[in-house]
């Protein structure tokens, strides 16, 4: 065994223990530790990625060297390492980009607690990515929920507490269903390790026993995770949670937290149940329907929204719909499209949140749509970044969103008629709707403002030098987005290779 193979385990432990460490040190030091931890984990994930690409297969890491049916396992392959690396990059940029807001919006005495939450969140995300044990996954799902709740309500006002409460309630409903599903599976198969469960499930499927309980179990778990990842219509908590929490929280929540759950769902589909069984169970059709409805309804809500942060949040609802639609198509191509969209959406949505905050900085911190008039001139970089993010969301070539749309459409045209048409129509409609509200905003921020109004309201110009951290994060996000949009071929290849060795 090579030393690199320990890295997934190290990275989970590192972030898990740096969390409590942050609670006893000051805010500044905690911040540095947090960034260092994220960087270190990113580097380790890159090493794991390199290792798995080189060996060309996934490996199993025994925790405490207990062999298969008893011990707890970590399993790392290309897909896991890629996700971990990507999550680290996005989280790092989100933390850098939101540092100014954090220093303004979080009480100084509580700042270190924020980093506790971020570190725990990272560790739970990593655990969700790497674990091969279903019950461990459940435990980390709860840790994820709790730390996300902390991220929402670190900035204390009525809205965030209410949003956090709603978020908790929905999440608990979801995790209740997930837990029940896990217990059913344990009951039927007698295992908790994913690979072992799959063996048994395949046998059960072959003999035809427990057909209905299996169906119920798959639906329970899918619905549970769908609730947790804010699939329409379970999204009521989302706009408030993203719209009013502090910037880095909103960016991390929208781009990473829901994606962690979705990744778990992919894992359940591929590694626990087996995708062919899931497809035969027709549960994907239900996800497909909800995904399609979400794509449209999320965009419609976003069009009606007058607050830019909430608008971006509603757009997340639509994008989650895309991802579920991809699963719902029920082909490997669809799942790859969804996985790519996870990356693309993570890169784009956090870019949008950070640039939107840059724009509101130049508009007297008002998030109302009307006050943003001309903000693109007052904060040039943020204006450009927001335009890039919008174009990516709309699916302009060169940016990542275009490739995901292309992949979705490819997957759709290769599928059955009754799915191809709704999928393509939904893609078309949702693209147009996206264009409506994102272009509306771009038009708004580039409409020259009345000079008197600007000086009366005291809107200031924001230069790059004033907001070094945020500007650097924005530039990195733009580069990331274009990299995803232009060099998609190797990434898609990695995703499909990873998916092959995933099961």
């Amino acid at each position, binding site marked *: 065994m090579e030393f690199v193979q320990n890295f997934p385990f190290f990275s989970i432990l590192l972030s898990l223990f740096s969390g409590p460490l942050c609670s006893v040190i000051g805010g500044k030091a905690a911040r540095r530790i947090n960034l260092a931890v994220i960087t270190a984990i990113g580097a380790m994930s890159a090493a794991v990625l390199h290792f798995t690409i080189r060996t060309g297969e996934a490996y199993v890491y025994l925790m405490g060297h207990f062999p298969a049916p008893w011990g707890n396992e970590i399993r790392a392959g290309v897909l896991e390492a890629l996700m971990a690396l990507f999550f680290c990059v996005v989280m790092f940029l989100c933390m850098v980009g939101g540092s100014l807001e954090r220093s303004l919006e979080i009480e100084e005495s509580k700042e270190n607690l924020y980093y506790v939450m971020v570190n725990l969140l990272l560790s739970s995300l990593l655990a969700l990515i790497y674990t091969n044990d279903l019950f461990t996954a459940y435990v980390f799902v709860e840790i994820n929920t709790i730390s996300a709740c902390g991220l929402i309500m670190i900035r204390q006002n*009525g809205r965030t507490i209410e949003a956090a*409460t709603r978020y908790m*309630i929905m999440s608990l409903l979801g995790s209740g269903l997930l*837990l*029940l599903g896990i217990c059913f599976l344990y009951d039927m198969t007698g295992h908790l390790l994913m690979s072992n469960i799959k063996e048994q499930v395949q046998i059960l499927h072959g003999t035809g026993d427990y057909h209905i309980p299996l169906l119920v179990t798959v639906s329970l778990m899918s619905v549970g995770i769908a609730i947790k990842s804010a699939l329409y219509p379970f999204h009521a908590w989302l706009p408030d949670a993203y719209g009013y929490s502090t910037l880095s929280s909103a960016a991390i929540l929208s781009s990473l937290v829901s994606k962690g759950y979705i990744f778990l769902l992919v894992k359940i589909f591929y590694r626990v149940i087996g995708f062919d069984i899931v497809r035969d169970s027709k549960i994907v059709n239900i996800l497909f329907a909800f995904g399609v409805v979400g794509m449209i309804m999320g965009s419609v809500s976003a069009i009606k929204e007058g607050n830019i942060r909430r608008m971006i949040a509603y757009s997340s609802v639509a994008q989650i719909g895309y991802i579920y639609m991809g699963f719902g198509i029920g082909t490997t191509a669809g799942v790859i499209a969804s996985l790519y969209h996870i990356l693309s959406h993570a890169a784009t949505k956090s870019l949008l949140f950070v640039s939107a905050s840059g724009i509101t900085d130049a508009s007297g911190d008002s998030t109302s749509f009307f006050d943003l008039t001309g903000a693109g001139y007052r904060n040039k970089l943020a204006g450009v970044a927001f335009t890039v993010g919008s174009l990516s969301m709309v699916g302009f070539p060169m940016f990542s969103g275009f490739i995901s749309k292309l992949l979705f459409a490819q997957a759709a045209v290769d599928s059955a008629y009754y799915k191809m048409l709704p999928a393509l129509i939904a893609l078309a409609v949702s693209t147009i709707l996206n264009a409506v509200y994102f272009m509306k905003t771009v038009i708004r921020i580039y409409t020259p403002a009345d000079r008197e109004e600007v000086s009366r309201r005291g809107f200031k110009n924001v230069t790059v030098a004033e907001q070094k951290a945020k500007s650097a994060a924005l530039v990195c996000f733009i580069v990331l987005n274009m990299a995803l949009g232009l060099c998609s071929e190797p990434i898609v290849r990695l995703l499909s290779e990873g998916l092959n060795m995933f099961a």
Partner: protein
Amino acid sequence: MNLANLANNYEEAIAMILFGIGFSNLLLQKNLIRKIIGLNIMDTAVYLFLALKGYIAGRKAPIVVDGVQSVKAYINPIPSGLVLTGIVVSVSVSALMLALTIRLYRRYHTLDLDEITTRLKKEGL
């Protein structure tokens, strides 16, 4: 599929009914405290179910006290372990929910979540 099956497995049936009660309370109650109670009922129902799965009639809890090493003397220990883990999780989640409820109550002097939402809209935050 008949009632006899249901009667034979009445423990599981009870667990599921409890789960349903807890779930619908968590989903539908307006009062936050009732929601939390619902949450706990739901979680407990799952633990009941798990414990049932690990139970083997006539055997003892898997704690070695009188030197009996044989596997045949004890029930399946893994579900018990899972239940313990689950309880830890649900305690922490309940604590967090209660803390949130206190925060909201201090601010709005009500436990009704919809009421709070309408007030928030009035505040125009």
